[in-house]
């Protein structure tokens, strides 16, 4: 589960002047032809850096994103829901493994990535810094947060970096179960008792603003992405992805009789795009910088997990072990 472009950090293209112009031209021509870049191919440092940042954030988002849903496994209503949610959470952690491996092919070790997550140096998707108070919150995540992630991941699967695309192909195939499971859960709540409907409506009210943040800052204020689009690191803009999500899922939410908590949300017949209340980007910045309702809890869970697993890693140490950068 991940929405791209979730920081305001700009990119400095100055380093491109240091690159070999002939190699840079060949690299760009390869991408323009639709070919994939593989780990041992020449690539500009900026491309490598941006990919590491993006894939690493994606991996962290999968592993942190498993936490708010994971807490609902024991309280999911009935054995079948528990089984499904457990499988989904296992998938999310598995996705993190695939993504860490893809990032490792670019030269950053998994250990360094985990360190950067725990110390707060690396970011993850902002939406997971919000709490899942009720079962309906968990259902919202399974259906709509995963739906948002699929919009983002299907686009990125057509990107230029081979190992990331291959990981995303596998992840997207698995996410289709998550989406159908989440929709199934919400249909049951929607067609259930008044109390169940109210529970989902309240979850929708809580999660809609973070959901609008999910695709990252508005194109009007987000960092310049022209070079990243040209290199197929980023495949569509934040606003385009947000619009695609609204196109696909607002009608489904309305169909179930729920009210989306934005009085300005409507499809503009002239532009063919959605009008909506501008999300609160100040809150987005505040939360991504550590001041959200659950930031501390999320990182603390990871820290305690690392601490409690230390004796296992100690026991597994062997002089013959050697870390080698993955091949592809």
């Amino acid at each position: 589960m991940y929405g791209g472009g979730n920081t305001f950090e700009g990119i400095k293209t100055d380093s491109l002047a240091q690159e070999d112009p002939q190699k840079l031209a060949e690299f760009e021509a390869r991408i323009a032809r639709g070919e994939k870049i593989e780990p041992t191919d020449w690539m500009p440092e900026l491309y490598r850096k941006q990919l590491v940042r993006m894939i690493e954030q994606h991996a962290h988002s999968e592993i942190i994103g498993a936490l708010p849903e994971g807490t609902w496994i024991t309280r999911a209503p009935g054995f079948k829901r528990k089984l499904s949610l457990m499988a989904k959470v296992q998938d999310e952690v598995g996705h993190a493994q695939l993504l860490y491996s893809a990032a490792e092919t670019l030269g950053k070790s998994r250990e360094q990535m985990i360190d950067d997550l725990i110390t707060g140096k690396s970011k993850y998707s902002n939406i997971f810094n919000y709490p899942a108070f009720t079962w309906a919150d968990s259902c919202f995540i399974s259906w709509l947060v995963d739906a948002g992630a699929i919009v983002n991941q299907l686009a990125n699967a057509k990107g230029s970096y081979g190992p990331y695309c291959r990981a995303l192909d596998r992840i997207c195939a698995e996410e289709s179960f998550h989406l159908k499971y989440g929709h199934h859960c919400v249909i049951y709540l929607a067609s259930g008792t008044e109390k169940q409907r109210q529970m989902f409506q309240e979850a929708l009210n809580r999660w809609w603003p973070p959901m609008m943040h999910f695709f990252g800052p508005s194109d009007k204020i987000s960092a310049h992405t022209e070079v990243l689009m040209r290199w197929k690191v980023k495949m569509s803009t934040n606003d385009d992805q947000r619009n695609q999500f609204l196109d696909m899922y607002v009608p489904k939410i309305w169909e179930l009789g729920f009210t989306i908590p934005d009085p300005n949300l409507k499809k503009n017949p002239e532009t063919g795009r959605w009008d909506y209340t501008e999300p609160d980007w100040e809150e987005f910045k505040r939360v991504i910088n550590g001041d959200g309702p659950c930031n501390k809890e999320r990182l603390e869970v990871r820290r305690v997990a690392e601490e409690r697993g230390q004796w296992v890693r100690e026991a597994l140490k062997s002089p013959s072990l050697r870390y080698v950068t993955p091949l592809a």
Partner: protein
Amino acid sequence: MLLNRSIAFMMKPIDPRVNRLPGFGQGSIQPKAPLDQLGTYEVFVQAKEGKPFQHEGIVHASDIELAYILAKETFTRRFTCVSLYVTETRDVYVSPLTDGQTSSYELLPPATAGNGPTEAYEVYHLVKRGKQHVHVGEVMASSPQEAMHSAKEKFGAGKVVYNVWVIRKSNIRYTNEADKDLWLTLPEKKYRDAADYKAGDKLTAFLERVKHSV
């Protein structure tokens, strides 16, 4: 107009597992001890009998047996699988990566005669950039370099191969007969499939109910 946020405050953990964790909230966040930089193992999966093995990715593990188990969990939780194998990344011998009409076999350094015993090697080809390496067969050789040249003679004629991997078979942890039980229950785990979540009838009934209540 900006949307109002209702929960923009730091809150106590609501995860019951977190509340039970000893030491929760008492530690400072420090880089962890450098202990889990385990070995990397490459994973190859066979989806169906008769289909070639294909490279799927890597796992981190402390030894090859654990790598095998982690590979099973990471790459074969769903979809069909009849076999997989793992080998340490450092045991995969890699040719130069090429593109266009240049075959990687053309860029091999001259063969040097190995002085070790002749052994069997698995051979993998990358024939489409962006896709996975796929198994093409095995060769006998006394060194990895010689195995590359044997693979060229046996499998390299008349086609462009962008990358070649050879792996000494003695360095591979294969699936044995007893392991095949691992995947027998895969078809029963329908809760992992999107197709198991059909709610069309329930949705239709709900929409009908709403229509009649208006």
